[in-house]
């Protein structure tokens, strides 16, 4: 790999020990990926601040001890604690103390304490064509697909190493020629009623991830005004069930003005024409139990937006929840809820806010097993192994109705 003079200087330690360590790691990754050079990145989103064990703390604190400092705007993903409502998180010591040290270390490195997995809805919005180094699989897929920014699916550690050096290896999705779709997914046979349901997008994403793996698909036949929250749900599900880092929606996303343009005017290598039956079977596999007595409802993976909170409140329509709804969000939305005067309404309805973190990355639920209902494909994917809770997947409307009765209520109409 060809390094510029300033990159070589970083590697040689002229920008300090921490930057040199970061440069060694990204140079090694560049070598493995066959990159010929490094490119500058304009921002980073750091997932490494989420606690997984003492090793991550040791890594981050070594960078802090060596006076590391990020050189591009670097937002932080969720941590394992709700710093605003610490009492809501049941994570015991010593993990709790370590999780806090880890979050502190990343702030000490100069990262922005945004603590959200939806940075793109918290004011961190890279422009189309910009090279960035983002981690957190749903943020990666959103930045690439919906914003047209360019990032690979960076893992923990790579994110902070790119932030400390301001560089990333020129490989993968940073290269324009690698961003075209090779798979076409036609949703033209599906009913408009189905496409109006929010659950459809999480299910479509789960189908996409488990079918195309990490290939790039272009989806046709979706409404031209499909909302950002729905694309967020689609991407998050696709990135949990597969390795999807980029998808296109013809006529909607920035690199797909048309089907042909997304495919670079070549025929697709694979073409799928989706039927309702295909999606119903995927939807059914997203649930892990037939039990209908619920213990908890969880929403907000990725972090809930203000719009999603307003929809939830409209669906509850003044009714009180019999089982709690845990709604995970970022402090950017908490402030909006506060200024809209909605915090009291949510609390009296039985909606418990979890901020800075979420229910699958740390201990929130009162019990270590039970049945959880969710509208999130990502929660559905991870809940059983990470929280011990069996999963029932449903739309946001199903979740709201089920929360009120305490039992699973489903509207099957649009899935027929």
């Amino acid at each position, binding site marked *: 790999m060809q390094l510029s003079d300033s990159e070589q200087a970083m590697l040689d330690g002229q920008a300090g020990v921490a930057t040199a*360590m970061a440069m*060694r*790691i990204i140079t*090694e*990754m560049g070598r*493995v*990926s066959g990159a010929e050079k490094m490119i500058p990145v304009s921002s980073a989103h750091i*997932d*490494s601040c*989420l606690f*997984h*064990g*003492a*090793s*991550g703390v*040791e*890594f981050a604190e*070594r960078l802090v001890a060596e006076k590391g400092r990020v050189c591009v705007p670097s937002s932080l993903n969720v941590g394992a604690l709700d710093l605003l409502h610490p009492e809501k998180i049941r994570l015991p010591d010593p993990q709790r103390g370590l999780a806090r040290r880890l979050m502190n270390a990343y702030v000490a490195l100069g990262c922005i304490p945004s603590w959200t997995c939806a940075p793109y809805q918290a004011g961190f919005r890279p422009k189309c064509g910009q090279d960035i180094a983002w*981690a*957190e*699989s749903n943020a*990666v897929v959103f930045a690439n697909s919906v914003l047209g920014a360019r990032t*690979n*699916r*960076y*893992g*923990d*550690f*790579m*994110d902070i190493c790119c932030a400390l050096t301001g560089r990333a290896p020129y490989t993968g999705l940073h290269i324009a020629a690698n961003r075209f779709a090779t798979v076409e997914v036609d949703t033209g046979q599906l009913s408009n009623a189905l496409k109006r349901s929010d659950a459809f997008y999480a299910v479509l994403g789960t189908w996409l*991830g488990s079918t195309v*793996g*990490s290939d790039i698909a272009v989806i046709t036949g979706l409404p031209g005004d499909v909302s950002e929250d729905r694309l967020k749900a689609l991407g998050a599900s696709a*990135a*949990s*069930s*597969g*390795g999807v880092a980029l998808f296109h929606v013809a006529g909607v996303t920035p690199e797909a003005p048309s089907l042909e343009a997304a495919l670079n005017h070549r025929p697709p290598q694979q073409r799928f024409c989706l039927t309702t039956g295909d999606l119903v079977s995927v939807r059914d596999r997203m649930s*892990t139990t037939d039990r209908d007595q619920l213990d908890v409802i969880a929403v907000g993976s990725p972090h809930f937006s203000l719009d999603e909170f307003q929809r939830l409140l409209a669906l509850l329509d003044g009714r009180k929840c019999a089982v709690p709804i845990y709604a995970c969000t970022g402090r950017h939305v908490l402030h909006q809820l506060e200024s809209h005067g909605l915090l009291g309404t949510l609390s009296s309805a039985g909606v418990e806010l979890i901020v800075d973190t979420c229910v*699958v990355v740390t201990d929130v639920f009162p019990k270590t097993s039970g049945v959880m209902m969710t509208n999130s494909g990502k929660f559905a*994917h*991870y809940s*059983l*192994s*990470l929280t011990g809770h069996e999963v029932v997947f449903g739309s946001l409307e199903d979740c709201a109705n089920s929360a009120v009765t305490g039992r699973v209520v489903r509207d099957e109409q649009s899935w027929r």
Partner: protein
Amino acid sequence: MMDIRTTALLAGDASGQLLSLSADISFWGGVDPCSGRIIDTRHPQYGQCMAGKILVMNRSIGSSSGSSVLLELFQRKLAPAGIILAEPDFIIVLGAVVAREMGYGDIPVIQLNPEHFDGLPECLEISRSGSLKAVHKQ
């Protein structure tokens, strides 16, 4: 010596029993960092432990926290002895690169055409050059 072409993504030598994953996995949420066991109940190799094994898999899926889980396995001496991938999976390679940087351990990560996966022996030795050799069960 088996005549199979491999690419050493990270050079190193290792030997161990094979653990071949028949489905892709997310290390985060799929592997317990405290025990090395597969905890994704929907995964075909649910319950198996990867510590000290030669892990054979196509690629990882899902969360970018996978590198952290792998690093934690290294620190706890529960990492696989070596990893064979069908694709150069950067989340996996990164965990191994950072483990080297932190002085936690040094394992080979090699890329192999998955059409050879089925023919791999139960116990395998990986050399620094990336060549594979069948060994007797330890």
